[in-house]
């Protein structure tokens, strides 16, 4: 199945287009591997990744972690890189009722705050950094 990101609001930066194959996005969004250390910092950050609001993970310096979602520990052995990528980019494609935000999507959203309009939660580079980190969680 081929999917194109299309029909952005006028002011928005177009997103990189990607191809969904089964339940995965096999190709890197940037064409280059991400940086696991930067990815860890994004996952840990309450302003950036927000992951630990819902998930727990092996990031002991962040004391307050959520329990609304499966622990991130082991994510890298449960899922392939491509599966992780689709789960980050737009998990609602796999489960429409999911509470996990779509991290790389700007359309189909309502009442987005002025500061966030036309921007995905994470950039393509940041998505790849997070994937590089998740792959280390074996």
């Amino acid at each position, binding site marked *: *199945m*081929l*999917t*194109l*990101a*299309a*029909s952005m609001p006028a002011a928005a930066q177009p997103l990189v287009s990607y191809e969904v194959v089964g339940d995965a996005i096999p190709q890197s969004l940037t064409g280059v591997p991400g940086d696991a250390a930067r990815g860890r910092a994004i996952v840990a950050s*309450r302003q950036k990744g*927000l992951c*630990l*609001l*819902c998930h727990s993970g092996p990031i002991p310096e962040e*004391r*307050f*972690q*959520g*329990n*609304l979602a499966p622990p991130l520990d082991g994510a890298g052995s449960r899922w392939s890189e491509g599966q992780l990528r689709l789960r980050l980019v737009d998990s*609602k*494609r796999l489960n*429409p*009722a999911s*509470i996990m*935000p*779509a991290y790389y*999507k700007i*359309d*189909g*959203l*309502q*009442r*987005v*705050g*002025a*500061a*966030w309009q036309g*921007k995905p*939660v994470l950039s393509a580079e940041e998505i790849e950094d997070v994937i590089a980190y998740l792959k280390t969680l074996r």
Partner: protein
Amino acid sequence: MIRLLSLACCLVAALPVLAAEIKTRDRRSGFDFMTPSSQDMQRDDMLNPGMLWVLEGEALWQQQAANAPSCAGCHGDAKDSMRGAAARYPAFNDRLNRPINLQQRINLCRSENQQQPAFEPESRPLLALSAFIGAQSRGLPIAPPEDARLAPHLENGRQFFKTPMGQLGLSCAQCHDDNWGGRLAGAPIPQAHPTGYPIYRLEWQTLGSLQRRLRNCLTGIRAEPFDWDAPEMVELELYLMKRAAGMNIETPAVRP
């Protein structure tokens, strides 16, 4: 198969997200999710910082406006006249032809019966009077008016509660109907019952209204908040009160 992501998104957005409403017997006040020390702080009037606003509100209740009667001048002893008032707002206002919340009612009295400028949203005197009036309903069950004119507004509020919003695409219902009791980072997710407003929130270090709390949740999901007292906000308040009908008023509550 080739299709546009935007189309897929529209289809997904059109699917109802099937959130089950909380059963009456499972309803819990935000109080029940707090630590024992915060609960003690709320229970004991000597420790509850919200009581400062209640006392200030009591003084304002008696205070005469320039060439106009005080609140007490028209309403007498609030213990009698305001008992249950906070439990039945938002209520339908004939002249405005829409529901208004308690703060808007206070401001209508200010402007119409006291010829004074309306209090600013979240201003100290408005919070103080709301806390004082709210405290007259302490222990009484939330009792939304049986008024058919409220029905379409209630329905709008319900829709709002269930609509995914903001950059994070979350609805109120996804957190408060589906995931209450879970932990969002360190914080337990309460059921979003407006039992204690205005509340003294430890994080704010001050008293704040229900709308201030709702704005926090909206900005948390990176949604654009509505203006203070926007019809949408009042409709949401109306739905929250209906959802909590029968639960006891705790004003002024303490919350983390």
